[in-house]
């Protein structure tokens, strides 16, 4: 085997790269990086970081009917929001909501992923069917749930079905006792979210090496629960951690379906709806609204960090 005469001829030609004149202070890869990420970074700064900074600044001012206030009031807005029973109640309610909706969505999306993953035919069809609701807006879905499926009149879909069994019409959203409104909210959220997280789990399931299952089978592991418990679930740890993190943030940021389904109520109000009414709907108090937003952000960060520490976010790959 020749190692001298053919070497140059077979080596890939790096012609284009070597011919390009080096740019002063900005190499080709750096230029490409900024070309592609620059617009997004600018958008991020303008639409995310500046508003966050402005909001934090507003929270220390008396800002009723203005977003350019001049009266500094220190932590008064924070005191107002923390002593405002409605806002603090919404924080507690939504911690409970998160404690329920997060594991339920996690379990459902994982269950769907396992089911679709095992399908031998029409896999793409079912994957699409479960994922499609993700493309629907929360507002549109909420209105369908409210006006068609869970309408309180006799021709609402659920009431029609129940009437076949002799059950009287239920006012799903109007009456907080019993709190049927949670059924409406949880089902619409599950319908909209589960497909997206199912895709994440599907991707993770496809990454589990089949050798692991083969080795487990040789060692005598029974297929089904035992394999799931000791092979699949641990292998999904990194994905599960990320999914739970995303679900937690989404739960605290819930707005659309609550705003559209529960207007003019004092129950089941998420923190963002409270802040919306504080800043826009009633008071036009942008200072208090901003203070509430900062409090909510800190709460989400704290819960997220605690969850990450508890579940080992980012350590998934290392612990494999």
């Amino acid at each position, binding site marked *: 085997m020749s190692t001298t005469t053919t070497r140059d001829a077979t080596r890939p030609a790096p012609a*284009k*790269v070597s011919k*390009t004149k080096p740019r002063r202070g900005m*190499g*080709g*890869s750096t230029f*490409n*990086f900024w*070309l592609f990420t620059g617009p997004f970074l600018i958008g991020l700064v303008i639409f995310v970081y500046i508003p966050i900074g402005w909001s934090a600044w507003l929270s220390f001012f008396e800002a*009723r*009917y*203005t*977003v350019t206030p001049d009266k500094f009031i220190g932590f008064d807005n924070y005191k107002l929001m923390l002593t405002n029973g409605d806002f603090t109640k919404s924080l507690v309610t939504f911690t409970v909501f998160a404690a329920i909706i997060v594991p339920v969505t996690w379990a459902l999306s994982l269950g769907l992923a396992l089911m679709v993953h095992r399908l031998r035919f029409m896999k793409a069809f079912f994957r699409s069917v479960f994922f499609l609701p993700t493309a629907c807006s929360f507002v549109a879905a909420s209105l369908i749930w*409210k*006006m068609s499926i*869970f*309408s*309180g*009149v*006799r021709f*609402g879909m659920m009431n029609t079905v129940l009437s076949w069994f002799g059950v*009287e019409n239920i*006012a*799903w*959203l*109007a*009456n*907080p*006792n019993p709190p049927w409104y949670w059924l409406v909210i949880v089902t619409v959220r599950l319908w909209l979210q589960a497909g997206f997280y199912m895709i994440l789990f599907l991707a993770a399931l496809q990454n589990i090496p089949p050798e692991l299952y083969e080795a487990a089978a040789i060692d005598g592991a029974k297929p089904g629960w035992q394999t799931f418990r000791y092979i699949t679930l641990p292998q999904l740890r990194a994905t599960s951690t990320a999914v739970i993190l995303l679900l937690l943030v989404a739960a605290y940021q819930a707005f659309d379906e609550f705003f559209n389904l529960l*207007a*003019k*109520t*004092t*129950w089941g109000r998420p923190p963002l709806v409270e802040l*919306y*009414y504080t800043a*826009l*709907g*009633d*008071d*036009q108090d942008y200072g208090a609204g901003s203070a509430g937003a900062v409090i909510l952000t800190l709460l989400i960060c704290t819960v997220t960090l605690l969850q990450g520490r508890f579940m080992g976010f980012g350590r998934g790959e290392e612990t494999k």
Partner: protein
Amino acid sequence: MSALSNSNWDRRSVLRAAAGLAALGPLAACGGNTGREGGGSSGKGLVQYFHAYGEAGTQEAIKRYAKAYDEARVTTQWITGNNFESKLFSALLTDNAPDVFEFHPQLQMIKSGQVAPLDDIIAPVKDDFNPADIKSHTVDGKVYGVRMIDDPQFFYYRKSVLEKAGVGVPQTLEELAEAAEKLTTDKVKGLFLGNSMVSTNYALVWAAGADQLNAKNEIAYHTDDVAAALKVYRKMFTSGHLLLDAPADYWDPSALVQGLTAIQWCGMWAMPVMQKALGDDLGIFPFPSAASGAKPAVYNGGWSMFVNAKGKNVDLAKEYVKWLWIDQKEYQEDWALSYGFHIPPRTSIAESATKLKSGLPAEGVKLFTDYGRFDNISWTQAMITALEEVIANSVRKGMDPEKALDAADKKVNLELKKLFG
């Protein structure tokens, strides 16, 4: 090798494409509605905000009036959904705020300098306006906003259904509750007060002999009679005789027209649609007395046109408001009577409105005159929500009315303190 370092694509092509997109920008802007385009014979532009009315033809009418104005090109933002207030409030903080907008008279907008006084354009015709409308738009002797329409709200009922059930027109709140019970069947609920039940808030307070605020701008809604009326509401809510969670809310006539309810709270705007669907089988009555000696009540809602005091074209905006809502009487009459039924706030127009002279519309005008109560300019958005929460908490959730009213008192007093010190 990093994919990024491999410049296989033609960078010049990308830059050319970017330049092309930039060149297309102005063309795209030609087709976009920025709400700020110049126009009209003078090249000046105005923006007006309207909430979406339910009556067919209203949007076209408003745009037709605006197009007829020669002094400026007037662009209309027709805002659908239930977020008109929030969109308006947020827009008023920006440079893209509307020059003129419709809303209700509220003191906080005046105190914060968001609306301009309109005395100079109203003064010549002030005596021709309904005095109650002028009063509800006046602060410290200055008039803010021009009333476009008055919208009395009362109960509509199916005469045949009440007759068949042997139910007379309710004269008291207790009788209304009894009527709801007698009229409820497997298919039809007796009464519809709206999905959130807050549309009758003011009428309930007035019919209980109270008021939102007194002349000194102190709380006047927190009385024993109001608390007692709330208990009757709670009884109706839990009885199963109210229509709840209807597909369309109280402002839409469909609940009565479709036979979902026998009695419905609604505005006079819906009268033509109801008459078309039900013919003569339609009656109206005011919110019945809810306390001994108290008069029935009709809420005279409506919409008014305001000028953004911080806008870029305040004088032009005032000229436009004067032209449309003071000078153009044919448009005002068309707006009040050609789509839904509204009562024109100008006495001269109301008196010549033949559509309101006879039959059910005339009865509506009589209820408006006899029992109508107008907006209190000191009753602001935060107070509106506080009273709505009383209904949510005491009627729908079962809280003791006194406690619910106490909670509202705290919020209303806080707002009053901010407004009046």
